[in-house]
């Protein structure tokens, strides 16, 4: 405990945990054996087991969504503004679970894991995984934790695709779902951005056909990240933050090193990224995004796919998100409505672009809090 404004605030200290399962059959027909998942939990699963919430991260996230690993930790989890004691997703009330997605590089099995058959890293021998495979691994974790159903599944961006997949893959396991800043399938433009990002990695000599060991393909990965980062911001948001500002006043660089603030910012983002993320994982995960289409659950028909869902939905998009647009969210909402599902939709007005789902804490958090509260009450009353 420590004190803020004279009030005792509980500091959430968490430990990452791992679970290993004998095998994970994949959509490709291959089997990962074994499959490890890294996860964190916050709060307590109550006796009725009706307060469990699954949080699913975006493309490059981790299982560490809230709290700190130790008091000395500089940075809390990636959604700490949202999740914690007394926060919008209140860990005093709910049992929150977050895991690292399959194919990632933060503890869960991915391309950089050791292939038990060879004793060496999988690298490009790693099977192509899908969003559905990620959900299947989360399902195994769910059973491991002896949770019967999720009060809610909550995810942004790639996590939102996982969320949508959960609702039709295991409808009986999902009481409610909150897909945020996401889409039911990538547009051609988004696939194009992913392609260029992967090309940057593939063209880095240090990538060495995925078999890099000492020298990492940092240049390729950081270019991929810089490109992607542009798609996470909005034109107006970038202009507000950086405008045409130069790094140093009146200094125009004669070479092609950073001159504008935005260049320097992107460079910084690229450099920070290679310290925490892996190039092969980036290849596999962006491919998983590209191949995802929720409509696959309905023979190519989104409406038919969502007909299977039984959850109540809160779908949220952001006005300046041009990566996964409001229009794409509305297509999900429309399909749900046409199936007579219980769906609420909000487009939050924001300049933050795709990143808004991490930044618009108040507007988003208020809706999530009220939605969870209602869903929980309904579940306790036995109406669901």
């Amino acid at each position, binding site marked *: 405990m420590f004190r803020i404004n004279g009030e005792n605030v509980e500091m959430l200290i968490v430990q990452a945990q791992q679970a290993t399962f004998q095998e994970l059959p994949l959509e490709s027909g291959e089997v990962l054996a074994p499959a490890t998942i890294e996860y964190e939990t916050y709060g307590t699963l109550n006796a009725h087991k009706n307060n469990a919430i699954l949080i699913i991260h975006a493309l490059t996230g981790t299982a560490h969504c809230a709290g700190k690993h130790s008091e000395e930790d500089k940075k809390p989890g990636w959604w700490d503004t949202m999740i914690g004691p007394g926060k919008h997703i209140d860990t005093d009330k709910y049992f929150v679970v977050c895991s690292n997605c399959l194919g990632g590089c933060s503890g869960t099995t991915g391309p950089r894991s050791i292939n038990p058959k060879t004793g060496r890293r999988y690298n490009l021998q790693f099977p192509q995984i899908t969003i559905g495979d990620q959900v299947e691994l989360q399902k195994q974790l769910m059973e491991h934790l002896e949770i019967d159903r999720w009060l809610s599944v909550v995810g942004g961006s790639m996590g939102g695709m996982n969320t949508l997949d959960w609702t039709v893959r295991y409808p009986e396991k999902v009481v409610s779902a909150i897909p945020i800043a996401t889409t039911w399938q990538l547009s051609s433009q988004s696939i194009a951005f992913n392609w260029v990002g992967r090309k940057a990695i593939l063209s880095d000599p240090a990538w060495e056909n995925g078999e890099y060991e000492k020298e990492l393909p940092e240049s390729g990965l950081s270019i991929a990240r810089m490109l992607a980062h542009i798609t996470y911001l909005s034109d107006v948001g970038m202009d507000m933050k950086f405008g045409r500002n130069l790094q140093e006043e009146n200094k125009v660089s004669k070479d092609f090193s950073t001159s504008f603030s935005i260049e320097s910012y992107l460079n910084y983002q690229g450099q920070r990224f290679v310290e925490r993320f892996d190039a092969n994982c980036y290849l596999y995960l962006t491919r998983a995004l590209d191949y995802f289409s929720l409509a696959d659950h309905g023979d190519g028909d989104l409406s038919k796919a969502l007909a299977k869902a039984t959850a109540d939905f809160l779908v949220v998009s952001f006005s300046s998100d041009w990566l996964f647009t409001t229009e794409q969210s509305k297509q999900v909402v*429309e399909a749900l409505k046409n199936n007579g599902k219980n769906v609420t*939709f*909000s487009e939050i007005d924001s300049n933050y672009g795709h990143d808004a789902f991490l930044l618009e804490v108040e507007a988003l958090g208020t809706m999530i809090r009220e939605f969870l*509260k*209602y869903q929980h009450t*309904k579940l306790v009353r036995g109406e669901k």
Partner: protein
Amino acid sequence: MDAKIVNRPALIEICKHIPENSRVLDLGCADGTLLEILRENYGAKVHGIEIEQQNISKCISKGIPVIQADLNEGLGSFKDNSFDFVILSETFQMVRNPDYLLSEMMRVGRTGIINFINIGYWLDRFQLFFGGRMPKNKHLPHEWYNTPNIHLGTIKDFQDLCKSLDIKITQQQPIFSALKMLPKVSPNLFAKKCVFLIEK
């Protein structure tokens, strides 16, 4: 009658016309009060459309499914004939193209219920006629230049519009507070508001 709308005669009037277990869409549903009553007391399957972020949160806390959208853009994502009733309460005069919204209501619902603000009301006429200025009073509190009520009309105007759109007014119920008999004699002159039921 639900205590939450005891002072809102137009809402009471709207509830009267909705049989149990109806499918109801409320356009501009605000904090979802009306839909909550219709769901709790009338077993209605409800949906709302609302533009204000804070109202969306309030609807969510009541468990009212709501779509954040601008009514000026029509009801595009709602399927034809997907509701028994489509309600438009005190919002009609605020939309950019009331005629378009009326036809949209008739597309997605069987019956439309409109709570119409009547500027033919004697007080409004009195203020314009003798005061020489746009009416400003308890039911029209804004200045002429900043009012959200950009399409004010009279009961007769509304009747004419429906006629031109081939929409039938199946019922009209003038809303009044004190003078109980007069609105029945001449609603256009004595009713502040009027609840219309319309059908194709």
